[in-house]
């Protein structure tokens, strides 16, 4: 894998991060931001960095597999069902985090405490707790179906080798991090300052997009 090839992959990820990822996966990092109210943005970013590290790891391994197989279609075809399941899981996670933000700050605290406080608490501990907990989450969500990453995996498959495919996908994945990290930082910053209605509205947005993820995973496609 040549230097220009890696730079091309990084550039595709970097540009796609702003032109694609923020729109398609921005709500996930928004959910991260909302799940850490009151935390300084710098501290709130630590689990996000771990999450991206996990995602980058998965992309790199998938790129290596594509390169080794020398075929995008064969590998992608085998993991399509698993990717749909991951989309459903990601949607469920976002719904839980969104509900925690939207409902947790209202007078329905009693319901949260009685019925779902443990669930919300567990989810929050994963995405806003120790960074090490977010890494496996990134590993799993790295399998989310994504047209942009498919393009990178086609390039990885075309390299025809394990190491070059891995490096190509790694460069692409690293390229996507700045945009999503910036979005996550903005969400964390906003989350630390937003109160009341706006904070709950962010939670509702995350719930809605999470529902879309679930529907997409179940192949009920809604326009977005």
């Amino acid at each position, binding site marked *: 894998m*040549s*230097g*220009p090839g890696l*730079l*091309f992959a990084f*550039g*595709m990820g970097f*540009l*796609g991060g702003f*032109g*694609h990822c923020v*729109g*398609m996966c921005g709500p996930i990092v928004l959910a991260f931001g909302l799940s850490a109210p009151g935390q300084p943005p710098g501290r709130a970013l630590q689990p996000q960095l771990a999450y991206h590290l996990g995602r980058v790891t998965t992309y790199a391994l998938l790129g290596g597999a594509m390169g080794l197989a020398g075929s*995008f*279609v064969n590998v*992608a*075809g085998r993991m*399509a069902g698993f990717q749909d399941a991951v*989309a459903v899981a990601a949607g469920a996670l976002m719904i839980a985090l969104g509900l925690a933000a939207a409902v947790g700050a209202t007078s329905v605290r009693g319901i949260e405490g009685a019925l779902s406080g443990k669930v919300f608490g567990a989810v929050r501990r994963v995405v806003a707790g120790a960074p090490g907990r977010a890494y496996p989450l990134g590993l799993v969500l790295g399998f*989310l*179906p*994504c*047209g*942009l*990453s*498919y*393009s*990178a995996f*086609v*390039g990885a498959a075309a390299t025809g080798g394990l190491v070059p495919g891995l490096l190509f996908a790694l460069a692409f994945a690293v390229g996507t991090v700045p945009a999503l990290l910036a979005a996550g930082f903005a969400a964390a910053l906003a989350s630390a300052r937003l109160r009341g209605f706006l904070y709950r509205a962010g939670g509702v947005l995350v719930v809605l997009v999470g529902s879309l993820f679930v529907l*997409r995973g179940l*192949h009920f*496609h*809604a*326009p*977005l």
Partner: protein
Amino acid sequence: MRPLGLASAASLLLASALAGCPRGGPAPAGCDLGSGPCSAEAGAVGIRLELSPRPLRPLSEVEAAVALTSAGAPLEGAEVWLRLSMPGMYMGENRTSLEPLGGGRYRGKAVLLRCASGRRDWVAEVAVRPKGGPEARTRFPFEVSE
């Protein structure tokens, strides 16, 4: 990295940056690559594109067959590229070079991707660089079946 390598990478990045912008000649009306071949004129070049096998399905490999003419004769010796993109959504660089078969015909393989949102509308853009002539491009919209 050598300066030449950097320049190449920078060119590729610039191409990538421009990738989200609609470009090329007007799309031919009333033609769907999912149903059969489509033809268009791009400047002095006649371009006919066929994708197969049909129906066109996401996450599958397709064969792209291009036939070029210029002034009524087969256009030989051109560099031909096929790029697949989604209108209004950057989906990365999905571009393939087509190999000449002779008689103005060019062929190559491409991969149809899948959009997680469920969108099925794509654009196939054919870029032709004839020897010593200006580059010609045309775009053919199409839909994949689920």
